[in-house]
């Protein structure tokens, strides 16, 4: 299939183009309006009027355009009026020159140096119009200045970074694209500059986040700190009437800027939380009393178990009754319904290729084995989507410990912004008891570390653990185990936020999977304990609701 055969008329042979839509343009009053977006390189098209869309059949290996470096460095010959503009904003001529700021036809140019080379140029006009080099590498502004630094200050814009340079701070960088909108779901592309700075960010002892004093700045600060690790992040508090560091410099002078950096305060993670620290969060909760955890994707569980960030859920159940299968199904639901991202340690599903096929089966709802199994194209497309959402942990190491899993999760969170972490099962992890520590104390200590990790990084952690012993009832059928039956004491129940047993109930009359919710810590938002029935489709590994009616599921 070609664009010509589809009736799409193009004037270019590569790149991106807007043209008329062969499906709807001839019927429209504004027939000449180019409403069809065509990506010629990728072979894709989309009409913004009639939503006609599709792709050519060619396989496209690299959807991202290659990174391009600026053809020339900025011209550092700064006119007097531009230098005055900087001076009016508290930035001296010395700093403008040392930072190699450029100017070209109304545009002030901020060069992004990385490894001594200009990899991007961000330009702005006096009236705050911005532009960047097309397809340039995304990296921090002043990237080279954080090399080897124990403390790094991150600002939201170049002028704020220059304000700090003016006050004598050299360990300052700025994010390249400004903040994110409040309540926006942060995309990986928005944070792509973090990848090249991973060594510096994870190696630094202290990160001071000097974002703007507005809702977007707050949102950016929260997401950056979540990815970098809040244990090392500090915040600054601006004086009244100041939105950013440049305003502080202009209105209050250098000493105030230095005071703000000196007085930067840590995130409240040390165990001491003042009321002021959580006032805004509590008010948010008050104003949005109906905010609940996320649905698992099974309507029958909505009133029993919902998923919230920063919690730990323990899953148990008799072996071969589907704990891991249900866990995988929940993960796929969270990916599809909420676009969550997961790190997963699933030792019983190695090698990963088998596990991946099972996940694809759940993802597509199609069998991955047998004569009617899904086709290669569907499998490949599904895997490319899942690749954005699921990362396997601990696949090459023999002695996996909770510490090593959390360390890998920390890096994954920095790179991709994880929402969920699955440890399945507990007994395949190498457990290293401290001297004199018994299993009860060990479980208590490790669950406490999982809890603090979940809260620190706002990640939901699921731990799948086998029960210590299995008991049968009078009919010689396995009794539903509770979290108290897991090896390692009642801490499993006491120290988790939520506790669930997956149990298959099978007799002559019925056959279903019972999701027994034993404990929900925050019942006002995550549901109340109870049991939901699901059925299991062995062909594709998906769980559906046990009753015939799908009411509420297909809204």
């Amino acid at each position, binding site marked *: 299939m070609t664009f010509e055969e589809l009736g799409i008329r193009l004037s270019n042979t590569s790149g991106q183009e807007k043209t008329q839509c062969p499906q709807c343009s001839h019927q429209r009053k504004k027939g000449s309006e180019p409403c069809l977006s065509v*990506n010629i390189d990728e072979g894709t098209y989309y009409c913004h009027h009639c939503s006609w869309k599709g792709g050519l059949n060619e396989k496209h290996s690299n959807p991202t355009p290659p990174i391009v470096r600026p053809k020339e460095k900025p011209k550092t010959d700064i006119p007097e009026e531009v230098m005055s503009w900087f001076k009016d904003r508290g930035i001296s001529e010395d700093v403008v020159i040392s930072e190699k700021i450029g100017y070209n036809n109304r545009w002030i140019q901020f060069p992004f140096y990385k490894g001594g080379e200009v990899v991007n140029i961000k330009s702005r006009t006096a009236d705050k119009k911005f532009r960047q080099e097309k397809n340039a590498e995304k990296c921090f502004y002043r990237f080279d200045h954080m090399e080897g630094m124990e403390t790094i200050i991150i600002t939201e814009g170049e002028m704020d970074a220059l304000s700090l340079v003016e006050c004598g701070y050299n360990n300052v960088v700025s994010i390249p694209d400004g903040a994110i909108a409040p309540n926006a779901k942060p995309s990986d592309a928005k944070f792509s500059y973090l990848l090249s700075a991973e060594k510096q960010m994870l190696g630094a002892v202290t990160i001071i986040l000097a974002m703007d004093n507005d809702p977007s700045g707050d949102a950016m600060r929260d997401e950056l700190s979540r990815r970098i690790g809040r244990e090392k992040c500090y915040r600054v508090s601006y004086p009244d009437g100041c939105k950013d560091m440049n305003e502080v410099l202009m209105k209050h002078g250098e000493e105030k800027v230095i005071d703000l950096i000196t007085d930067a305060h840590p995130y409240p993670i040390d165990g001491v939380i003042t009321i002021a620290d959580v006032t805004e969060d509590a008010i948010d909760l008050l104003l949005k009393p109906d905010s609940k955890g996320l649905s698992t994707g099974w309507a029958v569980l909505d009133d029993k178990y919902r998923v919230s960030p920063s919690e730990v859920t323990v899953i148990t159940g008799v072996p071969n009754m589907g704990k891991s299968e249900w866990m995988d199904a929940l993960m796929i639901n969270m990916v*599809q319904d909420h676009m969550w991202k997961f790190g997963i340690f699933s030792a019983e599903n190695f090698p990963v290729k088998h596990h991946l096929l099972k996940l694809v089966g759940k993802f597509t709802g199609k069998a991955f084995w047998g004569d009617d199994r899904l086709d290669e194209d569907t499998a490949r497309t599904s895997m490319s*989507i899942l690749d954005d959402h699921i990362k396997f942990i601990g696949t090459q190491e023999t002695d996996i410990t909770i510490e090593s899993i959390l360390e890998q999760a920390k890096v994954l969170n920095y790179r991709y912004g994880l929402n969920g972490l699955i440890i399945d099962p507990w007994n395949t992890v190498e457990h290293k008891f401290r001297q004199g520590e018994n299993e009860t104390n060990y479980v208590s200590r490790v669950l406490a570390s999982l809890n603090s990790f979940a809260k620190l990084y706002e990640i939901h952690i699921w731990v799948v653990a086998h029960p210590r012993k299995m008991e049968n009832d009078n009919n010689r059928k396995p009794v539903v185990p509770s979290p108290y039956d897991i090896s390692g004491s009642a801490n499993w129940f006491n120290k988790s936020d939520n506790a669930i047993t997956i149990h298959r109930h099978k007799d002559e009359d019925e056959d279903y999977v019972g999701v027994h919710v034993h404990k929900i810590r925050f019942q006002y938002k995550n549901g109340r304990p109870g049991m939901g029935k699901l059925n299991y489709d062995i062909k594709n590994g998906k769980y559906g609701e046990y009753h015939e009616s799908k009411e509420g599921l297909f809204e």
Partner: protein
Amino acid sequence: MPKPNLNDYHMRKMKMRLHEEFDKIWVKLNNNEATESQWHIALNKWLNSEKI
């Protein structure tokens, strides 16, 4: 191209969400708040999901 699985609620929800995200990026691109690269990625994510 394989037939879409119209009965799968979760898949439909995901496609809808990817479509919405692409639309948002498109608006941002027009306002110079997003890059072409972001536009490509969002479009490909959505179209890929539509292939399933």
